[in-house]
């Protein structure tokens, strides 16, 4: 018996020209794990929202959705509330109440459970999700990862049969994200809950997915096992292929045949079986080292703490950034990376040490530091929007917006409300606003957070263009793949200090855990391959050498 049955579903928003969903037919069985992917604007969220009546958007709809052979609109609201769980993107805005225990009980209160039942269920969930330690805490004191776990737990307390997740980890750092996705996997395996998930980090969910559904402009363009979908996308030369896991990309782009690898482990054994253990060509020639006489930023031994009796966040951090390069800082959560950026631009005042921008101490700039010199793009781009349209927002800084808009590729978005843009578009609009101050040194805090791989590509193009114009870029990021591809230097931040600084090739080549998927799969054979391109190039060189 099919669990969810969607028949010929089409949907268009009022006053919209093109339908968002077209002739979707889909059958999902009890306990399946379905990964839903597609470019932004392909209708993923709209499709997910159709699976729960209270969230279904208004518009013209044809076709039908059945849940266990009952049309979804005939399933009572109270049954839908408990049987279909829906986790949204933004961790901070989903909690309703102020306390963790209250949040866990919220759904159960709504469906009219008595105190004894709620007590048991809440206790059960707190144990299963390991949140007993912060059971009495205020919701506002939790980290993003904890908050999203709480959102999931408070839905699981209602014992749903189906769990729908709409990009649940896009606002989380990689560690919290994989924690979260592991929990989802555990729920699917141990409780048999059906999971339907959309996600940017396909590498993390494809290995657990039974089937992958690819949406392209509102139509189903592929629906099959992960490996079959990968093969299909490669054959069709689809842009979605670039979102597939690194081992799969390397496999097809290197022109290999046979069983395609999905995980790093499979990728590694595939490499091992197709090239000799000690390959003739084991490293790529190092690119010309970045050379610059001038220094854009010189941080010397800064110390900082938030209040008198708290611990030091920065403990003698020093860094020197040559002018005109892209410098990336990576490191774990809570290591103080964001605080380091804040200390550079003066939002935090270090109690010891000095910061010099273009050779002059920041204190000596007085009010001129942010004019034509230094600017920072905050982690949440929405903090920068204060007006009703993007254009008005940009004009708040400078009237001369044309060129910057072109650089950031937002010319077509100027009349829109900033909050109506997608995550990647918001990031570029915010960057445009920052760029209007004409900074020579640009600080970026987690710029690729919540972006899918297409937006990342566009964003990288913008950064490269800025670099050509001579802007120095210092970014803090969790995104090792992005840093490996585009940075000139990478530094490791740990325990309030900058530990090491290297070129990406030697930095990620030397790490075994904190490194890219491409490096992890190839490190047994190649010395400094850190991106998929590197591995493909080395693989092909070795195959040529063998012939």
């Amino acid at each position: 018996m099919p669990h969810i049955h969607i028949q010929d579903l089409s949907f268009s928003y009022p006053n919209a020209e093109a339908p968002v969903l077209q002739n979707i037919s889909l059958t999902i069985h009890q306990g399946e794990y379905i990964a839903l992917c597609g470019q932004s604007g392909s209708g993923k969220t709209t499709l997910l929202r159709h699976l729960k009546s209270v969230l279904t958007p208004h518009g013209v709809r044809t076709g039908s959705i059945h849940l266990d052979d009952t049309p979804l609109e005939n399933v009572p609201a109270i049954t839908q509330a408990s049987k279909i769980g829906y986790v949204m993107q933004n961790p901070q805005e989903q909690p309703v109440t102020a306390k963790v225990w209250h949040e866990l009980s919220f759904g159960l209160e709504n469906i009219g459970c008595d105190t004894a039942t709620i007590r048991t269920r809440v206790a059960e969930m707190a144990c299963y999700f390991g949140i007993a330690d912060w059971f009495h805490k205020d919701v506002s004191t939790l980290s993003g990862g904890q908050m999203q776990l709480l959102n999931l737990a408070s839905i699981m307390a209602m014992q749903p049969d189906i769990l729908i997740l709409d990009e649940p980890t896009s606002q989380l750092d990689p560690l919290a994200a994989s924690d979260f996705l592991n929990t989802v996997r555990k729920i699917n395996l141990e409780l048999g809950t059906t999971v339907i998930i959309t996600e940017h980090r396909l590498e993390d969910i494809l290995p657990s997915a039974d089937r992958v559904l690819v949406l392209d402009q509102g139509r189903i363009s592929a629906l099959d096992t992960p490996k079959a979908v990968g093969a299909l996308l490669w054959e069709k030369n689809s842009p979605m292929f670039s979102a597939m896991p690194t081992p799969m990309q390397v496999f097809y782009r290197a022109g290999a045949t046979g069983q395609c690898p999905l995980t790093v482990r499979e990728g590694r054994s595939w490499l091992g079986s197709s090239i000799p253990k000690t390959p003739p060509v084991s490293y790529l020639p190092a690119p010309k080292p970045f050379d610059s006489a001038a220094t854009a930023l010189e941080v010397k031994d800064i110390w900082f703490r938030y209040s008198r009796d708290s611990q030091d966040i920065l403990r003698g951090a020093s860094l020197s950034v040559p002018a005109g390069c892209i410098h990336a800082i990576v490191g774990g959560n809570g290591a103080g990376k964001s605080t380091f950026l804040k200390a550079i631009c003066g939002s935090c005042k270090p109690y010891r040490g000095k910061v010099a921008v273009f050779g002059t101490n920041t204190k000596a700039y007085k009010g001129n530091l942010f004019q034509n010199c230094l600017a920072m793009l905050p982690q949440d781009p929405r903090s920068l929007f204060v007006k009703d349209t993007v254009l008005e927002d940009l004009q708040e800084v400078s009237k001369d917006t044309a060129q910057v808009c072109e650089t950031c590729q937002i010319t077509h978005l100027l009349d829109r409300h900033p909050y109506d843009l997608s995550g990647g578009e918001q990031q570029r609009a915010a960057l445009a606003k920052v760029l209007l101050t004409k900074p020579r040194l640009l600080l970026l805090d987690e710029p690729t957070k919540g972006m899918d791989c297409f937006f990342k590509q566009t964003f990288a193009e913008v950064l490269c263009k800025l670099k050509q114009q001579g802007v120095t870029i210092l970014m803090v990021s969790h995104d090792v793949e992005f840093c490996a591809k585009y940075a000139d230097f990478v530094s490791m931040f740990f325990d309030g200090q900058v530990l090491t600084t290297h070129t990406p090739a030697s930095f990620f080549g030397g790490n075994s855990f904190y490194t890219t998927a491409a490096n992890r799969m190839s490190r047994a054979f190649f010395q400094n391959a850190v991106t998929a391109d590197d591995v493909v190039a080395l693989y092909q060189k070795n195959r040529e050498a063998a012939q």
Partner: protein
Amino acid sequence: MHSDGFSKYHPLTNFLFFLGAILFGVLFQHPAYLLAGMLCAGIYYVLLQGRKALKAIAGMLLLLLIVALINPIFNTQGSHILFRLFGRPYTLEALVYGFAVGSILVITLLWFGCYNQIMTEDKFTVLFGNLAPSLSLLLVMVFRLIPNLLSRARQINDARRAIGKGGDDLPLKEKITQGMAVLTALTGWALEGSIVTADSMRSRGYGAAKRTCFQIYQMGFGDYLVILAAVLAAIVTIIGAVTGATDATYTPLLWSAPVSFFLPVYCIYLLIPTFIHVKEVLQCRIFISRI
């Protein structure tokens, strides 16, 4: 914050105590009772807040002084004229009455300071949740919104500083413009967030059935004991008040009822949370010393 024994009792116990303490504090004008009220509230406030309390108390005493000094300017009743200000008499009685009014203000502030720390909003809503589930949920959401808005405002300010908008050393006019921009951004953000929250509520069945209210706190033996003690002490104090033991007049002549045994009973009532707090601390010490 420092752990406090009294806050571990049931919200109802906490609430009843503060209700009594604040009502008595506002109603009694007898100088001895005012002094007792200030001391007892002050001690508990210091126990709760630690070193931070001293600064706040200094501020409150300053307020007391200002109220006391200002009162005679508006209130010219009284028989002992100290001097004339703008031709109006500045009397001793009015000055003393000013001190009394200031003390009432300080007592109320102190008790509310303690109340805020003990009666977190979740406890408050637990108390009234069964009477009005929707109203109490609304209150929880409002309480949640305020700290969220504040932290968001800080975030926006920081972001704007880093593109050269805002900062501390701006002229007043520019500061107001900047403040308005931040306010607009906050409103937009709050509206946007509330859409997501509303979706999250509906998707978890809000409005689908009659809501119940989950009680995490349970009344225990200790709660009944404390409530009994408090009620007894309160009844005795009320008898005292009815029979005139707490009466006092300030103008036109200073007069107060003689101090009787009702005062120590009143003190016992006010010191209940302090007793519990000290008892907990001592018990902890003893347990640790046994290890």
